[in-house]
């Protein structure tokens, strides 16, 4: 009885220390971020996109899905024939482009974040297990990973979407189905190194169960590199989502998604340049900001990953 109470007390004490360290680490990280202006700028822009996505219904001046046929192909407000109520103009169906871009941020961010998150959870869990236990589990998972890596990403995702059909969950599944491999490889390699260190030996010596060692001893040490890879992959996932939407293999057509909007405007390139170019610009700025932030994060947290 006393033993259990002590364990619980110890656990809470350790948790307190962890949280304290996390808070201190965060403050330190924010201080270091000041030395990386491009990363900070990127972070601020990404934050702005997240806010816009959250507040979309309050920010969008018009309904993104209902158009006014009289306003079909209205040019942006700053041009000669522009309408001040439609800042970025309207598409063929007379739907406000700005409102559609604002709502489109939701799909890109949700799919980008969730597909990477799912990949991190699956890949890191598998990678830790494979790296820690080795044996047939490791051989099997590594062969599966090799097989998946041998396939071009987009072709893979297109084939998956072809079989699954359009939809946001299918989109996340199709993107994560291959992306987890990268987190698997990263965490497996890191665990192989960490496993040989003294602190793991010590934890084993005091009789901690293997799963606890993985979760509470090893994982905190591979967390940084996982975070860095996750950020750098997020931009890529957003481009992949937009590419699938562009091909018509993303979310159902009535939901505003940037890739699909670029595709819609393709037929009107000669008369209405804004329909395709502006949503594309929204993707470019978001991905650019994420990548700037990711590169800064890498320089601060895990300089080993740098190619230079």
């Amino acid at each position, binding site marked *: 009885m006393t033993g259990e109470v002590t364990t619980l007390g110890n656990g809470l004490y350790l948790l307190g220390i962890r949280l304290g360290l996390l808070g201190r680490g965060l403050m330190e990280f924010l201080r270091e971020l000041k030395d990386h202006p491009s990363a900070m700028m990127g972070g601020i822009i990404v934050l702005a996109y997240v806010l816009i996505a959250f507040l979309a219904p309050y920010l969008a001046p018009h309904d993104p899905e209902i158009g006014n046929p009289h306003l079909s192909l209205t040019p942006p407000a700053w041009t000669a024939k522009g309408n001040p109520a439609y800042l970025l103009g309207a598409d063929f169906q007379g739907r406000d482009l700005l409102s559609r871009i604002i709502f489109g941020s939701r799909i890109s961010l949700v799919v980008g974040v969730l597909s990477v998150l799912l990949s991190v959870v699956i890949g890191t869990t598998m990678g830790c297990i494979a790296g820690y236990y080795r044996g047939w589990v490791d051989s099997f998972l590594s062969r599966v990973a090799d097989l998946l890596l041998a396939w071009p990403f987009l072709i893979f995702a297109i084939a998956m979407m072809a079989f699954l059909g359009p939809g946001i969950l299918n989109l996340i599944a199709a993107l994560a189905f291959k992306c987890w491999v990268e987190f698997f490889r990263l965490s497996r390699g890191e665990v192989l190194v960490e496993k040989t260190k003294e602190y793991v030996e010590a934890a084993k010596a005091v009789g901690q169960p293997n799963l606890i060692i993985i979760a509470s001893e090893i994982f905190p040490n591979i967390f940084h590199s996982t975070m860095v890879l996750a950020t750098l992959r997020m931009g890529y996932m957003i481009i992949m989502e937009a590419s699938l939407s562009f091909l018509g*293999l993303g979310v159902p057509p009535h939901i505003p998604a940037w890739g699909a909007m670029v595709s819609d405007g393709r037929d009107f390139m000669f008369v209405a340049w804004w329909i395709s170019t502006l949503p594309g610009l929204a993707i470019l700025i978001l991905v650019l900001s994420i990548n700037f932030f990711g590169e800064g994060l890498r320089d601060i947290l895990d300089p080993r990953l740098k190619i230079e």
Partner: protein
Amino acid sequence: MKAVKVLERVLMTIPVMLGVVIMVFMFMRLIPGDPVDIMMGDMVGISEVEMESMRRDLNLDKPVLVQLWLFLTDILRGDLGDSYVKKLPVSTLIFEHVPATVELALGALLSGLALAVPIGIISAVKQHSLIDRVGMAGAFLGISMPAFWLGLVLMLVFSVRLGVLPVQGRIDQTIELTKVTGFYVLDSILTGNGAALVSALRHLILPSITLGATLAAIVARVLRSSLVEILRADYITLARAKGQIEFLVVMKHALRNALIPSVTVIGLQVGSLLGGNMIVEKIFSWPGLGRLVVSAIFNRDFPLVQASVMTYALIFVMANLIVDILYTYLNPKITL
């Protein structure tokens, strides 16, 4: 000795392709529901008898292992089935479309390298100069840009506004070209058709740049960083000390070693070139495999989808094989 190694490496592609074929087969069987129901789901006026005969045609009435065996033997005989929509053998359709896709991928590779190699070299030699900064900023932009957007912007500027390059297709409709290989540039050279050559090249420019931009950005970054490192090596200092002119130091001594990581990256990017093909083919109405497979997906033309995916895998495996072999010639220390 080398020939034996190359042969070994070639033979190793067989199990990989077998794995791909089995995966494509499994894909069809793992999706929930009956494939025929799914294929015919939205079509009206299909009777139960017709569905039954289709199941028999697809061997769906037999045990799974027998199905796999029949599937494999059919492929070996070159029988990939018939397209449901176009009512033609799938292999004929694929052969018609592959040259366009490969021609575009090669164009992208060449234009990407033509852009990346000079930028990478100048950026490394003139590190921290204005050219370096602009070049690397451009490369960063390149990896953050969706290819379809770049394609549309290029089209908007060069085709719509300036009107200097064609909007879509592989060649002007008015030009007659005798088809020999299906590669238009090659065919026009073979038949000595100057007008066709000019037209085919003009049609290739924008799609190639669009597809090659990401590759160019990645290669430029990798080349710069490896060259920067190598230029600090002792043997480079020695070459300079011997009085070798700087141009030759860079081009002859440093570049050869600096190219090795770039070749690896190019090999890894071949997959993206093929995947990006589908996007670029849609933008520029390029009649290749990518457009074929996307339309097959929308038509639920499963034999065509299966065969196209396998063709992509085959091209991908072949391209990787070529990169691996090239690699050993560039760096004799590496064995296959």
